[in-house]
């Protein structure tokens, strides 16, 4: 009797909660993903490889990954800045500003795409300012990056913000009394704490950017080999009722993203470890 309670652990109910978790992960994630795998089994290995390494498909991976990475990086810097302002300063309308950060989550991506295109195209508000300088924004990779920045920014802000809030002001004050400059304090005291959430934010924004479809198709111009994103190629195969080909491209996309996210995660763990030491 006694031994069974000691084996149970402090909190009861592990079994049933674990069961629930497994059930829901299966229903929501694993079953759809295995259906994806099943769909591509219509292809022979050779055909799969042909589809996945077609030059147009490769070019689209390049566009997708490069713009998502660029947008993720810019979002990381901008997101830190926004989170910093929101946590450290008080100003009128702060609540509204804070709530606005989440809007890109709520907005249907196609709406975002159409409005961004309207603004950044050659006769739009902002696009018309850049047009005389010979810089085209809409229908180029710059436009894609801007759209991905828009939908990725909340990820960074919302992961950095709570960590920044938890940060003890006393530690910074201690650094200051020890004679550290503001920059030194930031670099040696604040930044190490913020690196893990920044990396998480980057990874989330990056991952979202790779799979993004709705906001990008309008602003990208969809030119094959130049501004065509991988999700559009998947849609194009579906439009031709080529389920197997579509899932082949999707699987490769999923695989590369998974490897990249794994890398970012392990990097994050390393950073957290060194920060603790």
């Amino acid at each position: 009797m006694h031994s069974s309670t000691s084996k149970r652990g402090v909190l009861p109910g592990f079994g049933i909660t674990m069961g629930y978790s497994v059930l829901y992960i299966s229903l929501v994630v694993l079953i759809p993903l295995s259906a994806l795998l099943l769909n591509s089994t219509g292809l022979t290995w050779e055909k799969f490889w042909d589809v996945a390494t077609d030059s147009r498909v490769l070019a689209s991976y390049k566009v997708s990954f490069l713009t998502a990475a660029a947008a993720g990086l810019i979002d990381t810097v901008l997101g830190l800045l926004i989170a910093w302002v929101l946590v450290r300063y008080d100003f009128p309308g702060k609540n509204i500003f804070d709530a606005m950060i989440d809007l890109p989550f709520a907005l249907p991506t196609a709406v975002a795409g159409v409005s961004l295109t309207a603004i950044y195209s050659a006769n739009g508000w902002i696009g018309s300012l850049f047009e005389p300088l010979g810089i085209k924004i809409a229908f180029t990779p710059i436009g894609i990056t801007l759209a991905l920045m828009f939908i990725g920014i909340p990820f960074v802000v919302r992961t950095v913000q709570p960590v920044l809030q938890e940060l003890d002001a006393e530690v910074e004050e201690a650094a200051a009394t020890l004679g550290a400059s503001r920059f030194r304090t930031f670099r040696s005291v604040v930044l190490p704490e913020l690196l893990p959430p920044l990396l998480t934010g980057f990874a989330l924004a990056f991952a979202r950017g790779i799979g993004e479809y709705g906001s990008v198709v309008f602003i990208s111009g969809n030119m094959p080999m130049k501004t065509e994103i991988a999700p559009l190629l998947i849609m194009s195969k579906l439009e031709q009722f080529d389920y197997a080909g579509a899932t082949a491209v999707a699987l490769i996309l999923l695989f590369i993203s998974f490897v990249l996210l794994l890398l970012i995660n392990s990097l994050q763990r390393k950073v957290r470890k060194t920060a603790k030491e």
Partner: protein
Amino acid sequence: MKKVLKQGMVVSLVLAVSLVATACGDKSSATDAEGNGGKAKEITLLNVSYDPTRELYSEFNEVFAAHWEQKSGQKVKIRQSHGGSGKQGRAVIDGLDADVVTLALGYDIDAVQQAGLIHEGWQQKYDHNSSPYTSTIVFLVRKGNPKGIKDWDDLIKDGIEVITPNPQTSGGARWNYLAAWGYAMHQNNNDEVKAQEFVKELYENVPVLDSGARGATTTFVERGLGDVLLAWENEAWLSVEELGPDKFDIVYPSESIIAEPPVAVVDKNIDKKGTREVAEAYLEYLYSEEGQTIAAENYYRPTLDSVKSKFEGAFPEIKLFTIDEEFGGWAAVHEKHFRDGGIFTQIYAPK
């Protein structure tokens, strides 16, 4: 611990099974209700169509409902579903319980047929390749036609920007592509190499390849991009009507393709639901005087002679070729042009 874990798994398994069971239960009771629907006073039809037919069918449905009630005493309610043609076809394949499909391409209905939902030979079931109304591909240019665009040849000139969506993502855009191809074939004594060169040059003048027809229209109309929009005749007239005739002109090229948006009953669904009679009458009524008039008023070319003569002058006579005589049907077109590695993808192959 292990034992507890196992218990949890069993609980979740039971939960899952009961979930599935209730879901199935719901479904069977739902079909029961629909089965009775055949005998009930009001029947419901679902017409799965593509984007630009929304206005056409909301008018037609009212007229048909009145006609059917008068004829059979039965009330019929028609639900509409619109979207990209290919997506709509896929939804029907995946189980959307459409009674009739009225899509932009025979290719999309072929796909539904191959999934076993429609009997073979559907395209011969009704007159004119089962296309009660047709359309064609025309040019929409800016008012006064500043670039002097008259025919397909003008589209490959330097400095002309052509707006057309990607034929691989947009069913409607395939008609644009095929119209250009057919023209080039006729100009070059059916020399395919020259035709391919022509189409390649044309697509090199396309600055933005939108994913769908509505997107292309937006690019041309709202963003002010491009000199000419390749569009369905009915879409072009609608744009002019909605955006003001002071902004755009329609140019008819010397020849073009007959775009045939076909219709078919979804045999498997109507047999299950017992709606065959009314579904077939619905499509047949599209060929009637009333149906044809509504189509013509929505800028689709009618196929019935009496209505044709009523709208004389509304649809300029140009030389038109069909997909069957020029290309040998959709299956051949897809194999040659739009599949991966086909001619359209070769246009963008890196040099």
